Structure formats: C-alpha cells, structure tokens
C-alpha cells in the first residue's frame, strides 16, 4: 500500500508548520490558490476547513470565516469539485477538518471515496469521539487510506492520552489550552508545563500543537516540545486583511 503523505512528512528531521483555513473564504474559489501559495511559501501541511453552521469548538474568527464561506456558497460537493486534480500541483499532506454532521449528510462512505480519489491524506473531526470512530468508521477510513487525527487538551487524563496514542495514526493534535480556537500572542507557564508533560510521556505518535498559535513566538514555544504547530485564526485574519497573494509574507513572519 502507498505510504500516507502525513507519515512521510513526519519522518523529516525538522519542525513542521501547518496552516488551517476555512474553504470558501475570503472568496468561494480561493481554495486552490491558497493551497498553491501555502506550498510555495514552504508550509509543511494544510488543514482545509469544511465550513459548518454550528462550529461549537471554534472561536469568533473561525466562526465568522465559516459563516462567510457558507454565504459564499461553499458546500462539501463544491469543495470536492475544487480539489479535483489538486495532486497535479500540490505535494504536501492535505487534511480535511470539519464537523461530523455535514459528512454524515454527504454519506460517510461516499465522503471517504472522494477524499481518496482527490488525494486527501487524513481527517480531523472534532466532534467524532474516539470510541465511536473505532467501532463504526475505522475500517472504512483505513480502506480509503485516510488517517483520522484526534485531539487532546490540558484536561485530558494521562490514561486517555495513552489510549488515544495507541489508536492514533499520523499525529496527535494537542489543543494548547482549555479554550476554543483563537489567536493568542504568548503562552504562559501553564501551557509550557503542559507541553513538557506531554513531551515527557514519550508518546509513539508525534504531536502537533494547535489553538492559540499566531506568531513566531508562539510557534517557537509550541515546537520546542512538539513536532509541529498549526496556525488557524491568525492566518484567517491575515487573509481577510491582506488577501491570498501575500501569503508568503505571513509564513515568513512565522518561520523567519
């Protein structure tokens, strides 16, 4: 079986920068240009957000970009159409991130098939619990070569982290603090000690920190104790203010 791009990327000897954006924002057809500009700027992986009307784990920035994307006419079908043929241009791992309800309505099996055809490497579904995934969907995802990544938070018990580590592939998404998504300018002692605690657990699966990463300082703080970091809200704010063509300048401020 072909090796998953996420797996290969995580074997590289460097810290990884991943970017999240809401598909269909700022403009409906920006999805592919954003992906191409991100890859050109040296981003290691991208999470493409499927917009949802009721994103209950998201803060104001992603709520607004989701709402705007839906108003622009974004749908699951539309996104798959936009992504058709994307592997002609893009080599980095692509992850779809979204809530479970739109996927259910599309049909989970059909959804997985389309992901495989396009060349999507994995999914992050915040409201699909680990146990339900294992009982009902793991085989299907495996058949289509899709990784499913899970979240952990500062409140997740060591026991549960060990369980998630055991059943994970790809990476573990470490939520930086007990909070919905949203940019922060610094991390405090609580985050640092949480990052260290997880680092010292010596998990099998690599970790990537997300939520609250917005600049070089938070990126560096997060990646000191993990394999990589994900930026979402701060990138979306940048897109809104500066547009799709200036993406490289944003990435430079993070990676130097």
């Amino acid at each position, binding site marked *: 079986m072909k090796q998953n791009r996420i797996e290969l990327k995580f074997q590289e000897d460097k810290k990884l920068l991943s970017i999240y954006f809401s598909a269909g924002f700022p403009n409906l057809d920006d999805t592919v240009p954003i992906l191409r500009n991100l890859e050109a700027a040296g981003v290691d992986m991208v999470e493409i957000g499927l917009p949802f009307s*009721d994103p*209950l784990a998201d803060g104001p920035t992603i*709520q607004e970009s989701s709402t705007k994307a839906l108003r622009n006419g974004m749908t*699951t079908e539309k996104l798959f159409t936009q992504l058709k043929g994307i592997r002609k241009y893009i080599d980095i791992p692509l992850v779809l991130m979204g809530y479970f309800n*739109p996927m259910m309505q599309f049909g989970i099996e059909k959804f997985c098939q389309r992901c495989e055809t396009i060349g999507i490497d994995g999914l992050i579904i915040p*409201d699909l619990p680990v146990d339900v995934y294992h009982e009902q969907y793991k085989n299907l995802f495996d058949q289509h070569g899709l990784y499913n990544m*899970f979240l952990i938070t500062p409140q997740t018990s060591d026991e549960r982290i060990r369980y998630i580590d055991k059943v994970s592939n790809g990476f573990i998404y470490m939520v930086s603090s007990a909070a919905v998504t949203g940019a922060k300018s610094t991390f405090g002692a609580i985050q640092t000690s949480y990052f260290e605690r997880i680092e010292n657990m010596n998990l099998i699966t690599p970790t990537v920190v997300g939520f609250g990463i917005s600049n070089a300082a938070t990126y560096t703080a997060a990646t000191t104790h993990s394999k990589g970091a994900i930026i979402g809200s701060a990138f979306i704010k940048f897109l809104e203010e500066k547009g799709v063509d200036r993406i490289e300048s944003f990435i430079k401020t993070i990676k130097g």
Partner: protein
Amino acid sequence: MNYNVDEKGYYGDFGGAYIPEMLYPNVAELKRNYLKFTAEPEFKKEFDALLKNYVGRPTPLYFAKRLSEKYNTKIYLKREDLCHTGAHKVNNTVGQILLAKRLGKNRIIAETGAGQHGVATATVCALMGIECIVYMGELDIKRQAPNVARMKMLGAEVRPAQSGSKTLKDATNEAIRDWINNPVDTHYIIGSVVGPHPYPDMVARFQSVISEEVKTQLLELEGRDYPDHVIACVGGGSNAAGLYYHYLNDNRVNIIAVEAAGKGIDSGESAATSALGKEGIIHGSKTLLMQTDDGQITEPYSISAGLDYPGVGPMHAHLFRSKRAEFISVPDQEAMDWGLTLSQLEGIIPAIETAHAFAALDIRKFGPKEIVVFNCSGRGDKDLETYINYFKL
C-alpha cells in the same frame, strides 16, 4: 422494545455523546456521577423538599370539565403552569443545581430561548448563592424583554449570543464554548432533553416527577394509575419527556407529541422536526434535526420561542422512528386560538408552547370513556405581549 436510555447513552439509533475532546472530561465527570449522586437518600430528601416547599409540588391534576364536555372525553390537565417561575423548567434546574453543588462547581451557565429556562436557572442560582451566566440569542433578548429583566433581578448575567442566527441554537453553542473555556469550576445546566449523554436522560429523570405524580393522582381520581393518552408539546422535549417517562414502556398508554408547524410545514418557516428533520448531530447528540442537504443546521420558526429548536431530544427521535409516539404538528394560528379557548373554557391562560398541545383535540378523536392527560406545561404571562398583538387585545 425499551424506550429508556441504554448503558451507552442511546435511545435506539439516537443519542450518544458527539463532543469535542475539550468537553470530554466534563461530560465524563457528569456521566460517572449523575446516577450515583441522585440515588443518594440525602440528595432525594433535599430534592423532594425543594420541589414541595419551593416549587410548590405536587402540582394538581385538574379535571377540565367544560373542555371534556365540549370534546366528549375525559380531559385532565397536569398543572405544571403552577410551578414556581411559571413552568415545568424549574424541576430540572432544582435537580441540576443540587448535582452541581455535589460536583463542587461554583459557576453555572445555561442557554435560553424564550427565557423560561434562563429564569428557572437564575432562580435556583439565587437560591443557592451561586454565580449564574445565561446565554441568550441577541434576537431573543429583544423579543423577550420581561424574562431578561427577571433574570437580571435574580442576579444573573445575561450574555447575548451574537453568532449565527442569534437565537436558541446559537445560545446553546455559546454556552458550550463557555464550558470548553471553563472546564473545571463550571456546570452547564441544559434546559431540555437534548445535548450529549447523560443530559437527555438526566433531564428526563428530573422531569419524571410529572408522570410519577400523575400515576398517584389518577389512581385516586379514576381508580387506575394510567391514562389512555398522554399529550404534550415538543420543542427539545423536556415537558413531554416528564409526562411520558413512567409510561414509556406501558403500551396501554398512547403517546402523542405535538410540534410547532409555524407558518405551515411546507412554508419554510416551521419547527416540525419530525416532519422536516433528518438524522444528524446537533449539540453533541445524534437525533433528528432540520438541516440543508449539505448538512448545515437550519433556523426553525414558531410563534412560540420555546418550540423553535431545530432538533428534538434523542428520546423523542426514537419514539418517532419506532412509532411508539404519534407526532402531529400545529400551525401558529391554531395554537394561538387554543390560547384563547383554554383561557375562556377553563380560566387558564397557557403559554403559547402549551397551547399547541391542545390542538390535538381537533386532530384526533378520543372516546367518551377515554382518559386524556395534557401537560399544561407553562403559563401565558410571558406571552401576553404576543397575545395582545395577535388578538389586538
């Protein structure tokens, strides 16, 4: 078939806990403890005492003589409208505040649509001296000014939900986000039989005092402890869950659920989830909900703010799919007319939500010997402005 929740938190195909990992510890803590704490004799004693001395239970089971004559059947009203704060909602908030205290929580959050659950939550928080924050859609805050004022008088902070459509579902999203941001000290008092397991079961249990009393009262009044029909309105479905609870597995009792058709099922402005909903996930529960083909949750409409929720609780989704309950839907106009009819036949001004249930009398025929119990779930004081404008009073 069993119509109660199973050990995994499902009612047939529906229920479960589809929640982000950030909520897992909170929900797991509740799941571990809700049955244990509520079964303790000391909890029961405190709960029962508050229901009796503070809420005013048991509420009467009143034989509606003129209404019965008009429809040539035997109609009883379970007078939840006589509860403190004006509706059944307080049964649940009393139970949950006692649970929150035992869990060591010192901050309470709640969502509210019309404001009834918000008022009931603010009330028990005042009673216990606990901080209370109620999320309410910005649009609802404008529509329900008297309840906003009541919550403020009771010492609660009312926070406007400004996301999405700015109504109940968005207030619920905001409350969930608050809980994600405050996972340690906060308990979220959900107002209906919705949300992730164990909420639907927990709220149904606290509301089950309604049918528990009906059993005792009917035995005394009719010599048997069950009616032929139980009828209640369903938004999320908490008052209905309370009335049905002890009869769920009793096939002698026919269950009727009345939803709000709004301006008509096909009008695009409706809250009749059983007719318009598809299986999906809302607020952490797999249930029937109104949504687009793309899986975006749609905004429901009803003249009664308490029924315009885009889903139903998973228990009700199961009752519907398994055909255990008969679901009917009633448009605004008929509900409003019933508000007037009940007022003038029985001297009881019902909440507009409650008024929907009575329209079942025009849709279904009941025999002269049959016993029909309605949940008279709330009083109409909060709806006076709507009644005034509608009937030009």
